[in-house]
């Protein structure tokens, strides 16, 4: 078809090109396409398809600047109100740069997924980098694919970086040759999980993330203000430099002491511009109940003898050293381990003996202790645990602080025909995933050490046994948070094993009776601890009391004293949260 183009047509009323207040660009590739097809005489598209395409485009149109679109595109996921609120806030008030700092188990990943989905639907984001701890890579990939229909890919080989949405471990990404590649690209969105690993601005993690070029950025962490205001400042500077002013301004305006803020109201106001922190017990989030069962146990005579022996040794050594706390850490460990298993004590003792000079007078005493370990043939706690597991006949996670205890339990359970898997921080990513899968599928019991506490989600299991207790309440809460989180369908039963007449009994009493921590769905634990720990960490206070108490009586009264001040603080916090809705 020839085209005669006579430019005789009257120009449309000589209008000057109107000026837009915003740069305007026309994409004109279509014209070339059309002209070349006219020249070649086709091929031509299908009219029905064309209409369908327009209708599809019409239905996906973002018609409003300020309305969440993503919920329409999700099926099988009904986000909770606080999660939608968070997504809304990040988009429309924070312009896509925020710290998501919900308490453990409130679904930070869901919030991040919602925000990402919204930006994808709006076409504002194409290239995305998600950096998470190695053990969480596959979990992120699965959740984004299954819950949000987002085609995320786990970084496996160098070419994986070429995908639009990549999940990788921060430790891999910051290393060469990946680092160079990543720093030379631009990311529409950067998401970092467990972002408290970025609190130190001298670290390679921090500098790497600072150099990445990003448009929107989400930092996820459950423990943003754990101990140090300076760390909080660093995290925010990473996200929005200058938001809290310079380090100097910040120090002058908001900091009294490393742990103690001033002008709290003002600080909170500034923080709320970049950080969202939802708490348990706020809003209509319905968690299932926590049921606590304390299991008192009586040590066998041999075990009791060992316990007493170790306790006496620890105290005497402390007295001799003149009360120097910092060098006493291994002794404290010894004291705590003796409540867990003889295997744990044994290893620590042997290591201590190795370090002693050959002629040290302490040596004999320690050898004696080793001898008394030998006399212990049974483990009262392990027997009880076995019995509990048999009775419940469901999946259960057993937490212990010590690798030696973990090994012992594995062996013990296996000998008795229980299927169990270990989980610990030292495992590599593949092994962790494998263990998780085994636990989900075949094994009835998972035995985890404390290091395994972070980042694993075990909603399918609702029994947990604290074989021994950490003395830091936040760590206890983290343990519970693995199981008691969104998605848990059943009430969670927590078993605490405590041997009567030992330090363990006192600690359990303190955590359970005084701060009521096992049942505290009303959050706020971190607030209480922050206030308590303005002078010294709780853990350290406990160590001191334990080492310095001359009698059981004295121990009890000092612990009671701590308990009083903690329960006082928790009442105070409760009152405040009621006063400020």
């Amino acid at each position, binding site marked *: 078809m020839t085209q005669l183009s006579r430019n005789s047509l009257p120009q449309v009323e000589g209008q000057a090109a109107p*000026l837009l207040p915003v740069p305007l660009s026309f994409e004109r590739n279509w014209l070339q396409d*059309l002209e070349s097809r006219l020249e070649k005489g086709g091929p031509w598209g299908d009219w029905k398809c064309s209409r*369908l395409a327009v209708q599809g485009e019409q239905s996906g149109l973002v018609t409003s600047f300020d309305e969440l679109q993503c919920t*329409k595109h999700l099926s099988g996921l009904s986000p909770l109100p606080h999660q939608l609120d968070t997504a809304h806030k990040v988009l429309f008030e924070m312009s896509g740069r925020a710290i998501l700092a919900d308490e453990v188990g409130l679904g930070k990943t869901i919030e991040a997924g919602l925000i990402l989905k919204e930006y994808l639907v709006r076409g504002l984001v194409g290239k995305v980098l998600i950096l998470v701890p190695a053990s969480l890579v596959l979990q992120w990939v699965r959740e984004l694919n299954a819950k949000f229909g987002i085609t995320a890919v786990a970084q496996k080989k160098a070419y994986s970086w070429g995908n639009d949405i990549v999940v990788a471990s921060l430790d891999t990404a910051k290393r060469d040759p990946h680092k160079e590649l990543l720093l030379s690209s631009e990311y529409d969105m950067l998401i970092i999980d467990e972002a408290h690993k970025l609190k130190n601005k001298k670290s390679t993690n921090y500098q790497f993330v600072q150099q990445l070029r990003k448009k929107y950025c989400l930092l996820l962490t459950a423990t943003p203000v754990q101990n140090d205001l300076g760390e909080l400042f660093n995290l925010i500077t990473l996200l929005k430099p200058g938001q809290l002013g310079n380090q100097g301004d910040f120090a002058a305006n908001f900091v009294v002491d490393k742990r103690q803020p001033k002008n709290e109201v003002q600080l909170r106001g500034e923080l709320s511009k970049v950080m969202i922190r939802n708490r348990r017990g706020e809003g209509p989030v319905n968690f299932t109940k926590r049921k606590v069962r304390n299991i008192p146990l009586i040590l066998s005579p041999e075990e009791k003898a060992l316990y007493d022996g170790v306790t006496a040794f620890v105290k005497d050594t402390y007295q001799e050293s003149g009360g120097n706390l910092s060098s006493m850490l291994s002794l404290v460990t010894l004291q705590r381990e003796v409540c867990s298993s003889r295997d744990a004590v044994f290893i620590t003792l042997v290591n201590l003996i190795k370090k002693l000079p050959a002629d040290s007078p302490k040596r004999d005493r320690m050898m004696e202790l080793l001898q008394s370990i030998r006399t212990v043939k049974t483990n009262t706690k392990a027997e009880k645990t076995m019995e509990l597991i048999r009775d419940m006949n469901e999946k259960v996670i057993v937490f212990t602080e010590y690798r030696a205890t973990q090994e012992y339990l594995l062996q013990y359970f296996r000998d008795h025909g229980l299927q169990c898997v270990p989980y610990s921080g030292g495992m590599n990513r593949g092994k962790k995933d494998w263990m998780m899968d085994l636990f989900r599928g075949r094994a009835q019991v998972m035995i985890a050490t404390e290091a395994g506490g972070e980042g694993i989600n075990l909603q399918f299991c609702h029994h947990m046994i604290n074989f021994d207790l950490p003395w830091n309440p936040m760590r206890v809460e983290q343990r519970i948070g693995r199981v008691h989180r969104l998605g848990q369908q059943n009430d969670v039963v927590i078993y605490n094993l405590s041997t009567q007449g030992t330090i363990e009994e006192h600690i359990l009493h303190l955590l359970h009776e005084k701060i009521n921590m096992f049942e505290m769905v009303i959050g706020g634990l971190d607030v209480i601890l922050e206030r308590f720990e303005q002078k010294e960490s709780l853990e350290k206070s406990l160590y001191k009391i334990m080492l310095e108490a001359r009698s059981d009586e004295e121990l009890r009264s000092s612990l009671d004293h701590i308990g009083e001040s903690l329960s006082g603080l928790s009442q105070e916090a409760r009152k405040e949260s009621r006063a400020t809705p």
Partner: protein
Amino acid sequence: MTLTAQEVRKHVMEYLEATDCTIIEVSPLHVTVKLSPRADRMLTDRPYYWGFVERTGAAPETLSFTFVFDPEQYDHAAAQAAAPARTRSAVNQPQVSLNAEAAAEPAAAGTAPDGAPAGGPPGVSADPQDSILARYFGVVPALPRLGPGMIRREDVIYGSKRLNQIWAAARDEGKCLQLFEDPGSRQRMTLFSAAYEPWLGVCYKVEMTCDLKREELHFLGISLTTGKIATDFGSRLDRLELTPRLPENIHIQPYDLSVSGGADRLESYLTGQLAGMDYSWAEQARERLKLELSIVDLYYAELLKEPDEEKKQAIEEQYNARRTETAWQYEPQVAVSAVTYGLFHLRSS
């Protein structure tokens, strides 16, 4: 705007019909379909297979799917249909029917009352994602199941990948058009040939972007004979019967405008339309940008007092990077692209 199951169904069925797929079974809740080679190429992501077919000339074997538009109701109906079917032990019947499908589905989902053991602890999970590949990659795309009766079920609802893929495929196949109005059979008999006017039609997508975004569609048409512009050109076309073949006994009026000339006019018309809009969103975005930049400036002004030349340079680099990032995030702009476009020859009125 979201779509109901019925609207989604309409879209999917339209696509399947447009691409000549073989419908095996259909209900308001689902469709079981054997794809045509054309649709298979677009939807199943098997370039190697199709390369093989092209090179060897082997007869292509396309995939079949059951697309479910209302999963909840479908499962419900299937469960009901399955209950009597099972007592008659009809499960083993080889034919692909709603019943056989239905009997298999709830058993797999474990919803059948007499189905899987109720949650014994050491049960082995039957999760399809529990494969070695899934353990390595997190997720694996479900592999195509081949062979008679091997039909994969897929829930196609608004927001699902499949629906988006179907739209993308439709766009790919339907973006560039040349069509003629069907004059009807009477025109062939009449003495005088009918005069046809050439129109350039473009469906523009306008994207207004800052740190947020809004979009509009403008389906415009311009007569290449008279230069007249029609604003809602799409709905005018919808009312007509269009055919890709040049009808008999018609003639096309000469062009006064070239195609690119028409495009220029359409663009300046659209620009005029856009100029009349409310740009408070852009102003607000610029306000936000200004505020953010002032914070950045203030922060780095202090840091740039650094005496060490080397450190200062690093800070300056960071400062510039941060400024660029901020502008990238907030700077308002309007971008226009074309969804579909083509020449439409319509009867002159």
